[in-house]
Each structure stands twice: as C-alpha cells, then as structure tokens.
C-alpha cells in the first residue's frame, strides 16, 4: 500500500505551467505587466490592468505576512486527513501577490499561527515540482 501523497498541480496547465516549472529550481515566480506594472497572480497570459500581453516573470524573495488563516481539523482527503490539524493561510507576499499555502513547522497551529505574523518560504520537494509552503520567519 502506497502512502497517500499531497495532491500536486498539473504541470501542463497552460497558464500556470511556467510557474510550476520554476519551482523545480526553487524559484517562486509571479508576473508583472511591462506596460502598466499590474502584478498578475495567479499566472495568466494577459494583463488584467490593461490589454497588454507583455508580462515579465519576476522572482519573489519568499517573505510575506499571514493575511488570514484557518486550522483544518476535519478533512476526508486521504492525504490531508492524516495531517490534521494543519494551518491553511492566505499569505501576502512582500512583492504584492496574495497566495494560498500552508504554514508549517509550528507545534500547535492554533496557538502558533497568527494574523500579521511574518513568514518565509520553505520548499517541499517532489519529483516533478516543488511545493511552496511557509514557516514562521526566523
């Protein structure tokens, strides 16, 4: 019996495949419009701020703030039900994008994760991609 594993992204999804490809090099990337500077996230092929398609991939330094979070105590998913309780959070990256992730490396997520706390990127390694998770900034 194989251990259940974390659900992983499709690496061939047309808008996000470059994002996931960059994770192989442990790079957290987001897009910005050359013409109007709009930050585009999740990744797309078009700018939502103007009609330009001139988007440049930028590299996040991987630091951010917990905008809000929850501690999941019940899940029916074969992988996640073995992980409860775990923290899911909206992370506001210092560069602007707000991304959904987990806050890990805490003893008690209810007590140790707080809104406004500073977090830093930590990669969970997989074969095809690496998964961007966060831990309290140290």
């Amino acid at each position, binding site marked *: 019996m194989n251990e259940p594993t974390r*659900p992983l*992204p*499709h690496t061939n999804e047309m808008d996000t495949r470059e994002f996931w490809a960059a994770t192989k090099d442990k790079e957290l990337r987001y897009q910005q419009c050359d013409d109007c500077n709009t930050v585009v996230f999740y990744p797309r092929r078009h700018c939502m701020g103007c009609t330009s398609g001139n988007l440049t991939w930028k590299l996040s330094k991987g630091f951010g703030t917990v905008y809000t979070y*929850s*501690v*999941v105590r019940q899940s029916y998913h074969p992988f996640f039900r073995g992980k409860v309780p775990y923290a899911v959070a*909206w992370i506001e990256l210092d560069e602007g994008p707000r*991304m959904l992730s987990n806050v890990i490396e805490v003893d008690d997520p209810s007590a140790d994760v707080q809104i406004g706390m500073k977090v830093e990127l930590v990669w969970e390694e997989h074969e095809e991609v690496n998964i961007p998770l966060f831990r309290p900034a140290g």
Partner: protein
Amino acid sequence: MNQRDAAIVGIHEHQSRDVEGKVSALQIKAESAARALEDAGLSWSDVDAIYDAGDGGGMNGLTIAEYFGLKPAVIDTTNVGGSSYEFHAAHAKRDIASGKANVALLTYGSTAHSNARAIGVGGRGGGGHHPADNMDMFTGMTLVANYAMVAHRHMHEYGTTSEQLAEISIATRCHAMRNPDAVRAMEDLEFLDIRETTIDDVTNSRMIADPLHLLECCMISDGGGAVVIASPEVARNCSKSPVWILGTGEATKYPQTSADITTSAGAYSGTQAFGEAGISPAEIDIAMIYDSFSITVMVLLEDLGFCQKGEGGAWVEGGRLRFDRPGDGPALNTDGGGLSSNHPGMRGIFLLIEAARQLRGESCSQVSDAKLAVAHGNGGMLGSRHAAGTIILGRD
C-alpha cells in the same frame, strides 16, 4: 422608483432532504416545477422561459427543456454556485420586462446527501485544470476553512467573537424547530439532540476549521425546489397574491492584492438592488441570507447595510434576528436556513421561496404584516472567489 414588472407567483420546496437514492435530481426539478406551476394556477404550456444552473451536464439548457417538454423562447443556464437562483430571478425580471417572456420557470434539484458528496469537508484532490485551482489545490483547504479564514480576519479586525457568530446559528435553529420539514430533515440526516440551541451549545460543539464550530456549518441534504416568475398581466390572474421583484443586483469578487476579505461582493449587489427598489435596509422585514456558515451571514448583514462594516457582532446580540423580535431588524432565515433546514449544495432558490412565503403570510415562523424581504445568495467561496445576487421582494 421601482418597476413592478415581474412577480413570483408560484413556489415549491421539495419536502424530503433524504430521498435515499430513490429520486434523481432531474425528477426533483420536474416535480417541483409541476407543484410550483399548480401553486400559481398555471401549467407547463404557460412557461416560455427557463432558468437552470446547468448542473445537469453538457448542453443542459437544451436537455432540460426537452425533459420538461417545453420549447421556451428564453434559456438561461447561468451557474454562479448557490447564488445562481438570485441571478436567475434578476434575469427573469429583465427578460419579462423586455417582453421576451411572460412566465419564467426556475428549478433546482440535488441528491448531494444521497451521493454522500462531501461538499463541506472534502479537500479537493489532484491538480485542477482551471489555472486558479491549479494554484490552490495543494494546500488542503476545505470549504469550511475557506469561510473560516474570513471569520478569523473579521475577528482580528473588528473583535467579533464566536459567541456573536453563534447568535446566527441559534436564531436559525429556533426557526427550524417551528418548521416540520426542517425538523424531519434534521431527523433524516441524523442530527444529534434536535432542539433549540444556546450560544454555549454552538461554541462547545466540535471545531471543524478554526474558528468555525460544527453548529456554525450548514447541513448536507438532498432537495430542490422551483419558482415561477410572471409578468403583471399573468400575475393578476394567478391563484396567489404576487410577490414583486422590486430590485436586483449581481456582483463577483476574487482574491486580489490588498483586497479586504471581510467585505463580500454583496456590498455591490446589495447597493444595486436596494437602489433599484428605492428602499433602505431598515425597511426590510425578512432577511433570507445564504447561511452556508455563520460568518457568511455576519459579513452579509454588514454588506447589505443592516449595520456598519465590523459592527455585525454587536448588532446580532440578544436574539435580534428571531422572527418574534419585529421592529429592531429583520427576521433571519425563517425556514431554518442551510444551517438547520435544507442545504443540498446550492440553496439560493430556497431564499426566494421562503421570502415569498413570508410575504404571502404562509411561513411557519410568520412575521406579522411582513411587507418587504431581501433574498441574498452567495455562490462559490466567500474567502476566495464568489458571486453575489441580491433580490428585493415586496407584496401588494
């Protein structure tokens, strides 16, 4: 001032919340449609417009028309989750006002409970083929956790407490206990200890996703219903008194840099709907607000303008939302809501149905002389991407 150019003239809510796999979602739709048409004193042949959330598969607008045996002039398969039926009502009013249709039929059917579809607690598995899904799915965020993140931020910014959120659960349970269909639903779904609840009952119930407790989460039932909306000419000759659609609003919201998660798309749809109706929230007798979770109602009471943003916690205290407290705010979800009566996945149609019951004087928790109601559907997920549909209803 509002135009009385379309009215709800027929309603039906499927009674059973547990069909034990013996009835299909399509059959629930058709049966509900027939009962709602009878309620209006109309028949299939009167219907010239159908509205369906397209949850029946490919080419659903075509297949549902054939299934009903209709050749409608208008087909609308807008699907914005649980708010689809408020969008449909808005579109029906527009289509009737423009002369494209006279009798609009909205239907919903679901066997979510029989399918044991874990809509409330399932982590989405595997990668998503939509780019947004493909960015989120690795986190194990459950539906409850999505809403719980709104609750946490609301608590953080405004000092809202679990006890205040619990007020929403106990008000809807109070109303559910007066509704025989809701009581039977809770029995069929094997709720433990079916009775009116207290704040302590809610805050002592099991935590599902911090800070939301079990009794702050909707049930997962089977069910369905239908609503018939007609032109003034048709409405005049229907069996029941018309419930006019006085104003409508539609809006969407999704995650963006610096977006305030404690304000929903309802702030925009509500402003549109109240503006079109030419009335203020203070005039509303009945608030049918999508109670997927306690926090959904808290945020929406603020967004719809019953109180200021951030003041919802104090505003709901002391049982203010109960049906027997008229005069200091609207009665909330007098059918028992999604928390305690009926939630087969997309309960927006029940908001229209119970609002119409109240304005006809037919509710189990009737507010005496109820004149104005709001039905507000929230579809998708409050803490990320969601749609908001607001419908203002009034009687003659």
